[in-house]
């Protein structure tokens, strides 16, 4: 191609061409003979040599060679699968690069803002939405695990009528007939039973329906709804309000049986706020003291500076006594247990000293009067407006749910209900046992159920409609503070599921409409029915300015296709929150007379039972979620089962050990369940967790655990007194992942008091056994030049909420092994939460220690691997090469932290097709016989590395968040480059509380821990708390 190119002729050529013509080079355009020749030689299909006639010899040679090669290729049989490329590549979609979409998860009466990672159109991982007020980027374990529910192979997949497959159109027609038949009576036979509805659109839809059919009724039932909280606020204020806590402003917190740091719709927000006060920056500890009074040990209680274990039924008396001392006139008689007397004075003194900076929180299980007392105390202490504000509730129609369910069942029994529409939820399983919901259901002429699973309720309904998972749905939801998020689908419904919107719309006059249209119509102000609906319900205060605001269109002359609403809509979808939809505080006053009038609950006799949702599978809705079933519950470390928790003292008195089967009886109701001794559990009280003993949960949940619902009646939804316990003599094997609760005097979790810390900020370092010196033969240690990844875990703020454990499981395709394997000590969690107790077994201090791979610089695992399957990267990562691993397990034996996990069998589910799209494509699905462990989410590091390299820059601090870190509500886990002195992790490692676990082994772990500093009340605890801890140290 030496011939010069004639530019002029090129121009003419290009001008003469029509349309958009692509050209590769100037030579290509000019079509020089050299270029043609080049092309001819370059691309084999044109190569002239190959067209030469094949001689006999040549032919035989070729044939021989191809036969041989054919034989080679036959070694691996190619699958007969058609590969179809995108006909049109979706915009922004780059294969291998995940996209994140904002959505929200509706759960137990509030929404949580999420960002969902989407790989080529399939959601794989859930993260919190940093812009969402109750998430702030964190998630709870349920949100993390909910992605597995999406891909649950046992989800119901077809609409059925009496077991026969039907179409949605048939169902809609059936609904239409019902409405037509009921039109005359105003819908007097129609009842809708839903869970707590916090979707403004759905609420408006049902309101519209009830408007047309005034005799129809809508009942909400949430088995662990906030019925006590709601009734408590009505008792105190005469109105349903939601208390919004500003924990970050509180100096003294008193929790009355409230697990406010981990559970409930504001748990994440509260945990973050609490952590902001608890976290120690530099050598200054903030002044915050947290008193917890509780019956069943909770995660919040484990973070308390001062914890008192009281029977659930005694907490009311305790609250009255404290209230009386802080100046609530209406408190009534004390009668608090003598053990608590010292406490009452001390707590009252502290609360009074911190007027306007204190906070009293009552727990959901406590009766309304305790809530009312808490409100009264906050008011008396001047905390209202400072640490607590009141707003309307997240649900637009707050109600006394147990009461309305009872009324509904009464009507069903009376036969006046002719059509019952159950919008998700499983009331046959969750309804209080005395209502005999299943029997009443049989008396309803026509029953329809919308649900994710063909569960106990679906089995008793004529119609069952598979529900769309929230990741497949268009909807909207309010967070506990009122902020609205639009729920947008991440994937088309896998099994053609329908949302509640669509089902309710089928009852409307206009017939079924897609949820997308309904939600959009609601927020655009077009109304959810073709004719203009009344203003959306919800008190008005929180409805955003959705109707086109004057001037908006003028300001931004957008293209004609994008209306002002579309502009907003896109922003809401993108951000995951609707701005300015949070509730504004309401001014409310405590009506003291009402509290005075409320009778004191009778003194407890015999044994108390407290009902709580299971910490892992909640009320049973996650029973078929294997991640949650196998998740060790933080305080008991039990998996796959529930047990009746009992205090050590009571257990000793009743001659019980963990695993003993007992019969619990109250009246005619009786259950059998194994007991589990829980240090710190209140005496004469048992905690029963609901959610287990499901019969129609699916392949995972069926038959796990024990059904305790029989004891839970509408009269005693939360606390049942006077329970008789009988030991049956049988025992049951419970699978716990941590059998030892003592630290054996070792310096594992290092604890000091605030006083001790202020005197000597480096107390934790002084607990080291022996500083290793001169242990290496090499004069010079390896220098990490580029990035050096490291992590700190602040045990001071970790609440042990388990989000990180599930997040890790979801991110890293960690398999589930089943109860039998857990019993054998083969659980696979890469990150485990170690839980230790110190002190008095009846009321111990509880510590949580998240334990991922420590990524040792001198890793004991690396030198012993015979095939070099675990090696050290130049960034300090202890890499695991699955392909190379032959599975000697020597690395695990030599790991002092025992964080390595071995695939003793083929644990990864390779055969359930519905689970395939769930897997993170960036992480290998491990096979049998290989070792695995935490990688510091190396796939995320590499993802960031690619991005940074493309931008020709360093990876920024905070650009890589490990899965555990991003899920953590308290930001206890900090990860980053320790070579960068300004990174957060470097700053954190400079803390005087920073220490290496088992430093005496000279493993030089990259993961380090921050010691715990607590602030006990010296009046209540004269002896320093760290006494036991120090025993193993100071050598």
């Amino acid at each position, binding site marked *: 191609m030496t011939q010069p190119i004639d530019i002029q002729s090129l121009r003419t050529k290009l001008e003469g061409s029509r349309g958009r013509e692509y050209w590769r080079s100037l030579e290509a355009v000019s079509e020089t003979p050299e270029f043609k020749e080049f092309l001819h030689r370059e691309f084999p299909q044109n190569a002239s040599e190959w067209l030469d006639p094949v001689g006999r010899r040549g032919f035989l040679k070729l044939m021989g060679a191809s036969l041989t090669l054919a034989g080679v290729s036959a070694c691996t049989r190619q699958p007969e699968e058609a590969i179809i490329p995108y006909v049109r590549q979706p915009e922004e979609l780059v294969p291998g690069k995940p996209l994140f979409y904002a959505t929200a998860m509706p759960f137990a009466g509030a929404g949580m803002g999420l960002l969902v990672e989407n790989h080529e159109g399939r959601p794989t991982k859930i993260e919190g939405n940093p812009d969402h007020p109750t998430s702030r980027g964190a998630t709870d374990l349920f949100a993390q695990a909910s992605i597995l529910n999406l891909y649950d192979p046992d989800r119901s997949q077809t609409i059925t009528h009496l077991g026969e497959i039907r179409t949605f159109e048939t169902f809609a027609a059936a609904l239409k007939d019902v409405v037509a038949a009921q039109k005359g009576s105003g819908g007097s036979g129609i009842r809708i039973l839903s869970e707590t509805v916090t979707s403004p659109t759905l609420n408006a839809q049902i309101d519209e329906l009830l408007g047309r059919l005034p005799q129809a009724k809508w009942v909400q039932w949430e088995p662990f709804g906030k019925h006590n909280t709601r009734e408590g606020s009505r008792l105190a204020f005469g109105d349903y309000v939601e208390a919004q806590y500003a924990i970050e402003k509180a100096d003294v917190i008193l929790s009355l049986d409230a697990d406010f740091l981990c559970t409930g719709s504001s748990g994440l927000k509260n945990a973050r706020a609490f952590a902001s006060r608890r976290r120690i920056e530099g050598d200054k500890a903030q002044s915050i003291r947290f008193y917890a009074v509780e019956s069943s040990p909770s995660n919040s209680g484990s973070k308390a500076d001062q914890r008192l274990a009281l029977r659930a039924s005694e907490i009311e008396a305790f609250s009255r006594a404290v209230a009386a001392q802080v100046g609530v006139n209406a408190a009534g008689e004390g009668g608090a247990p003598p053990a608590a007397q010292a406490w009452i004075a001390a707590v009252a003194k502290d609360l009074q000293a911190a007027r306007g900076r204190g906070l009293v929180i009552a727990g959901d299980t406590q009766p309304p009067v305790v809530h009312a007392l808490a409100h009264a105390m906050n008011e008396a202490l001047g905390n209202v407006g400072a640490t607590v504000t009141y707003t309307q509730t997240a649900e637009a129609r707050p109600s006394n749910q147990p009461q309305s369910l009872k009324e509904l069942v009464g009507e069903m029994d009376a036969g006046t209900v002719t059509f019952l529409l159950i919008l998700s939820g499983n009331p046959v399983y969750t309804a209080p046992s005395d209502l005999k919901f299943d029997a009443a259901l049989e008396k309803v002429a026509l029953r329809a159920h919308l649900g994710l699973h063909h569960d106990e309720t679906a089995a008793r309904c004529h119609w069952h409609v598979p529900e769309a998972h929230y990741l497949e749905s268009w909807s909207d939801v309010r967070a506990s503070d009122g902020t609205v998020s639009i729920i947008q689908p991440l994937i088309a419904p896998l099994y053609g599921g329908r949302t509640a919107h669509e089902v309710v719309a089928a009852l409307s006059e206009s017939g079924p409409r897609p949820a997308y249209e309904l939600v959009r119509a609601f927020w655009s102000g077009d109304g959810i029915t073709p004719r203009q609906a009344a203003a959306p319900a919800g008190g008005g205060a929180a409805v955003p300015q959705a109707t086109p605001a004057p001037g908006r269109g003028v300001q931004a002359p957008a293209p004609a296709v994008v209306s002002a609403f579309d502009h907003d809509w896109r922003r809401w979808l993108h951000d995951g929150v609707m701005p300015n939809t949070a509730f504004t505080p309401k001014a409310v006053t405590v009506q003291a007379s009402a509290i005075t009038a409320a009778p004191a609950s009778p003194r407890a006799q015999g044994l108390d039972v407290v009902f709580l949702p299971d910490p892992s599978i909640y009320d049973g809705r996650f029973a078929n979620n294997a991640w949650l079933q196998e998740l060790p519950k933080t305080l008991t470390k039990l998996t796959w089962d529930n047990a009746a928790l009992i205090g050590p003292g009571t257990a000793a008195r009743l001659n019980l050990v963990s695993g003993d089967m007992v019969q619990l009886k109250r009246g005619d109701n009786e259950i059998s369940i194994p007991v589990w001794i829980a240090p710190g559990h209140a005496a004469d009280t048992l905690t029963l967790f609901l959610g287990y003993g499901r019969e129609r949960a699916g392949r995972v949940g069926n038959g796990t655990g024990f059904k305790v619902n029989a004891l839970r009646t509408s009269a005693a939804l939360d606390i049942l007194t006077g329970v008789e316990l009988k030991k049956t003599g049988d025992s049951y094997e419970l699978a716990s992942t941590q059998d030892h609760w003592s630290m*054996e005097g070792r310096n594992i979790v290092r604890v000091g008091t605030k006083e001790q810390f202020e005197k000597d900020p480096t107390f934790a370092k002084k607990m080291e056994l022996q500083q290793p010196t001169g242990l290496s033969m090499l004069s010079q240690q390896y220098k990490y030049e580029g990035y050096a990844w490291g992590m700190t875990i602040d045990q001071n703020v970790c609440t042990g909420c388990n989000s990180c454990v599930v997040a890790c499981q979801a991110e890293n395709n960690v398999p589930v092994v089943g109860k039998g394997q857990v019993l054998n000590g083969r659980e696979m969690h890469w990150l485990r939460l170690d839980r230790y107790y110190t002190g008095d077994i009846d009321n111990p201090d509880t510590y949580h220690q998240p334990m991922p791979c420590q990524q040792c610089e001198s890793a004991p695992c690396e030198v012993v691997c*015979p095939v070099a399957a675990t090696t050290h990267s130049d960034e300090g990562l202890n890499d695991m090469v699955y392909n190379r*691993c032959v599975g000697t397990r020597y690395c695990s034996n030599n790991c002092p932290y025992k964080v*390595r996990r*071995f695939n003793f069998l083929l644990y990864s589910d390779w055969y359930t097709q519905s689970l395939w799209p769930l897997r993170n494509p960036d992480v290998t699905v491990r096979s049998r*016989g*290989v070792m695995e462990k935490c990688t510091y989410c190396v796939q995320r590091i590499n993802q960031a590395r690619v991005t940074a390299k493309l931008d020709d820059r360093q990876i920024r601090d905070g650009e890589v968040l490990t899965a555990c870190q991003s899920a953590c509500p308290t930001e206890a886990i900090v990860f980053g480059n320790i070579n960068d002195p300004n990174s957060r992790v470097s700053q954190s490692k400079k803390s005087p509380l920073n220490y290496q676990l*088992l430093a005496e082994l000279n493993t030089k772990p990259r993961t380090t821990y921050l010691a715990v500093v607590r602030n006990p009340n010296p009046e209540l605890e004269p002896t320093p708390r760290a006494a036991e801890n120090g025993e193993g140290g100071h050598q």
Partner: protein
Amino acid sequence: MADHQHPQSRMNAQAEKQLLARTPEVIAPGHTFETVTETISHVVMSKRTPLGWFLGFGIAFLLLMILNLTIGNLLMTGIGIWGNNIPVGWAFDIINFVWWIGIGHAGTLISAILLLFRQQWRTSINRFAEAMTLFAVACAAMFPLLHTGRPWLAIYWLFPYPNVMGLWPQFRSPLIWDVFAVSTYGTVSALFWFTGLVPDMATLRDRAKSRAAQTIYGMLSLGWRGSAKHWQRYETAYLLLAGISTPLVLSVHSVVSFDFAVSVLPGWHATIFPPYFVAGAIYSGFAMVMTLAIPLRKFYGLEDFITMKHLENMAKVMLATGLIVAYGYTMEAFFAWYSANTYEEFMIRNRMTGPYAYMYWCLILCNVIAPNTLWIGRLRRSVPYLFFISFVVSTGMWLERFVIIVVSLHRDFLPSSWGMYGGTRYDWSAFIGTIGLFITLIFLFVRFLPSISIFEMRTILPGAEVEEEHP
């Protein structure tokens, strides 16, 4: 060529004469070259296989089939069929490995070290002690391979073979040292054993009646004619091999002990391990030789060749090595106390009082108390008692490995990860199965090969000297 008298006797006749004078019991009086050859080769040459052989072989073969089933299931399902878990990553698999490899040690010690020390009494037991070594190594070698998660890869990735990826094994890992130690040991033991067999193969070839036996033994005898040249070269080769084997007695089990000593685990990380393991190995090895020799001499009427002298000597070796082992236990406890290390202290306390304390105290009974009864001469010369004590010692040594491996692993640094271990039926079937393999091989060996070295026995006959003096 009927008799291949040993020319070595010429070289140090005087010394041997004195030796024999001192130790006449190594062979019963009245034997001639012919009777020795006849008695030993009769076992092999006899047309009639005793019914007892079939019975014993049948049982052993059944156990071997159990091993096959276990291995089949293991390869199909995964090592999860065993009870291993986290924290107890190694259990029966490695216990059995160390136990078997330890047993092998007596063979090498008898063949090589006692040969170099000119312990004449070794001649009647060295052949089957060597066979025992070889079979024990075969049983042992199975475990490091099968205990891996992916044995189909472990079988060659552990060897340093050149490959395009430039990927080598991790030479710092004691498991790699194991590969070399055990494979060297296996090779040298096999060579040593076979070299020792060559002159006897020739004897059998010459005495064989059937064509097949003549052919097979003929091939195995490698054309041995018994010429002086043969003998001279043979002697040199045999001594060389003995020289090579000698360090192996010390090195193999030292390397095996490094699997533990190199780690950071309390209970493993101890400098005393190499000598203590070697002593333990010889201890258990002699127990196994005893276990085999006593029935062998009884059923095949070889009491004349394996005399009380042999049994008593072996008992003395067991007593001596048993005391070394006991010293090892004492030192472990002493170190734990003297180091003032929390983890070490806990480890010993946990051994003595933890959930597996019964294992520890059984071990002390078997390995410390039981061998001390051998101080008593009457017991040392009681064949039933020796047979019994040999089992006690074998059990004790198995328990020792259990205590070292499982009891150290089950509770280490962080109490959160403590766990328990229990062997499953496949753990037991793998163990019993290898015993089956071992006994099967022993039965085949006794039937088809001379279990006592014919030519070496002849050298200790008084006749060997006579011939020497009247050439």
